């Protein structure tokens, strides 16, 4: 035990003195989310403000119809109504952004409306993406105009408006706020946790395995009268702590970015704090510890096989992709933890985390997740110990 602690202390000191390791383990996970948030918020704000404030140039070809609609458009104050544009050049002008929209009323529009038939209007706009802010702004006036005609028809026919509402639905969603947050944000958190656990443990694992081999310090260490397994455990400890530290830093970063963004309502912040209580965090950590031990075993084995830091990096890179897929399962809507998929590593942590946050985890499934993780952690520890004991691993040349 003393030897393990000695190795752990030294490896930790060595890792913390490595600037690259600090950047990978602490700085990147902590700053990534605040920075991402900042960029996302400022870009979307700037775009939205630009589109909202812009005066819209709209063509209305009414052929003497729908005079009330033109009036309503002008009343808005942010629409420049143009009437003298040839009909066939409209689409081209909108395409080239010279116009923002166009309304073409049929020549029989007013007559049709008066006869209680639908009056035809062609609405032209350009909306390549789904947001369609310009379209929404114009549609609003069109809706108001339609409502006026409808009201007028109801009063002419002396009918009550409730006849067009044969069923009145009052929705009552009994899902708790935790459950709703669990299914939305809940998918993202485990993804981050898992990813940063892996990324955070990756660098020290490479450094403490392949790095030591490349620098020739591993053979020096192996001349000490200590059990190789104890040396490995000391290294394991550092890799696991680094992974967990990295995940914790990313969560701290996320909290900071939530706190700093002024648009988030305080209720949302309170909710996040409530959902991520200490008991939840401890439960999540208890899943991450065996998972990170599993990562550490795999990473250290690969790292010890490699002859150099560079070779280890290129061997480990594909593992990233193998990890992202099951980790992202938590982000998919409708995928839930079952007794079957609770055995699949990484995916089970992703799904279980989501359910822990939502408060819907069942003890049976959680136990399966634990059993699966512990079996894997022990196997990876045992496997890497065996691997570390091989002459051909240490002296591979």
């Amino acid at each position: 035990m003393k030897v393990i602690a000695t190795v752990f202390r030294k490896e930790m000191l060595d890792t913390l003195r490595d600037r690259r390791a600090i950047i990978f383990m602490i700085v990147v996970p902590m700053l990534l989310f605040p920075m991402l948030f900042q960029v996302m918020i400022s870009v979307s704000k700037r775009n939205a403000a630009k589109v909202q404030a812009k005066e819209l140039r709209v063509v209305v070809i009414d052929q003497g119809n729908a005079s009330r609609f033109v009036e309503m458009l002008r009343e808005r104050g942010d629409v420049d109504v143009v009437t003298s544009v040839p009909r066939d050049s409209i689409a081209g002008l909108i395409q080239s952004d010279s116009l923002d929209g166009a309304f073409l009323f049929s020549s029989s529009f007013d007559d049709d409306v008066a006869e209680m038939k639908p009056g035809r209007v062609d609405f032209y706009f350009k909306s390549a993406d789904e947001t369609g802010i310009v379209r929404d702004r114009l549609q609003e006036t069109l809706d108001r105009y339609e409502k006026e005609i409808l009201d007028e028809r109801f009063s002419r026919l002396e009918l009550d408006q409730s006849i067009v509402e044969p069923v009145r639905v009052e929705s009552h969603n009994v899902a708790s706020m935790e459950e709703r947050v669990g299914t939305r944000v809940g998918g993202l958190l485990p993804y981050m946790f898992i990813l940063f656990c892996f990324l955070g443990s990756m660098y020290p694992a490479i450094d403490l395995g392949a790095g030591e081999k490349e620098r020739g310090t591993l053979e020096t260490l192996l001349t000490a009268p200590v059990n190789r397994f104890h040396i490995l455990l000391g290294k394991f400890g550092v890799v696991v702590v680094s992974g967990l530290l990295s995940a914790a830093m990313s969560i701290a970063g996320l909290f900071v970015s939530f706190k700093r963004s002024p648009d988030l309502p305080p209720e949302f912040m309170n909710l996040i704090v409530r959902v991520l209580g200490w008991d939840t965090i401890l439960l999540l950590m208890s899943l991450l510890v065996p998972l990170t031990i599993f990562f550490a075993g795999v990473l250290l084995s690969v790292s010890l096989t490699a002859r150099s830091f560079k070779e280890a990096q290129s061997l480990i890179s594909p593992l990233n992709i193998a990890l992202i897929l099951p980790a992202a399962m938590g982000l998919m809507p409708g995928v839930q933890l079952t007794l079957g998929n609770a055995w699949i590593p990484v995916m089970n942590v992703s799904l279980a985390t989501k359910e822990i946050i939502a408060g819907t985890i069942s003890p049976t499934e959680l136990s399966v997740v634990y059993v699966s993780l512990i079996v894997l952690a022990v196997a990876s520890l045992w496997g890497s110990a065996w691997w570390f004991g091989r002459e051909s691993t240490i002296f591979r040349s």
Partner: protein
Amino acid sequence: MIQVRDVSKTFKLSRQQKREMGSHFRGETVEAVAGVSFDCQPGRVFGLLGPNGAGKTTTLRMIATTLRPTSGAISVAGHDVTREPEAVRATLGFLTGSTQLYDRLSVNELVRYYADLHGVPSGLYRQRREQIFAALEMESYADRRIAKLSTGMRQKVSIARTMIHDPDVLVLDEATAGLDVIASRTIIQLIRQARDRGKTVLFSTHRMGEVELLCDDLALMHQGRLLFNGTYAEFSASMQSPTLEDEFIRRIEAVGA
């Protein structure tokens, strides 16, 4: 005391390694050491000599338990290398060109780390540290990071690391390689002192001057086999060339490269 009895070491080659050996190479294995036997006695310096690739480092690694012999037996201070590797390492101070130091630790931290791994109690550690640091004149850079040291300084730290647990047996592979004459002399003196205190010293070098200065016993290794094993006096008596270096080359050429 080191006893090496009929020791061989064969490396099995992977497919890639075979490819890397070139088209003239045939076979599945490489025999790095073949049936080597010698004894190193306490209070004497044993010189293991041989050209590059002779199998010296492999032999020394087997003595240090980082490699296992394919056949034969080695005992260090009465402990068998395969059955009691940890006991062997506890009595051994091992230094080769491939035992490097941690750049990000200071000299003090590094030497302390190895003392802790060897289970040296604090009081004893301080006492030995004083002695070794004074003998090797290391005090002025004791808290400097290893990365900032010159080659000579590093080698002295390596020696300090090798001796901090006061091992009965010292295995030094080219301990003076790359050092200037002053640094080399300090290390030579330290080896002499160790011998005078009854330690077993196994020493490998390419510098013939050091062999004359230090070695009581001598083995000449070539292509995994011993060409000579005896005392230095016996070796000089049987010399057919004027200098040690010439004799060394003559014996190797007689076998054929």
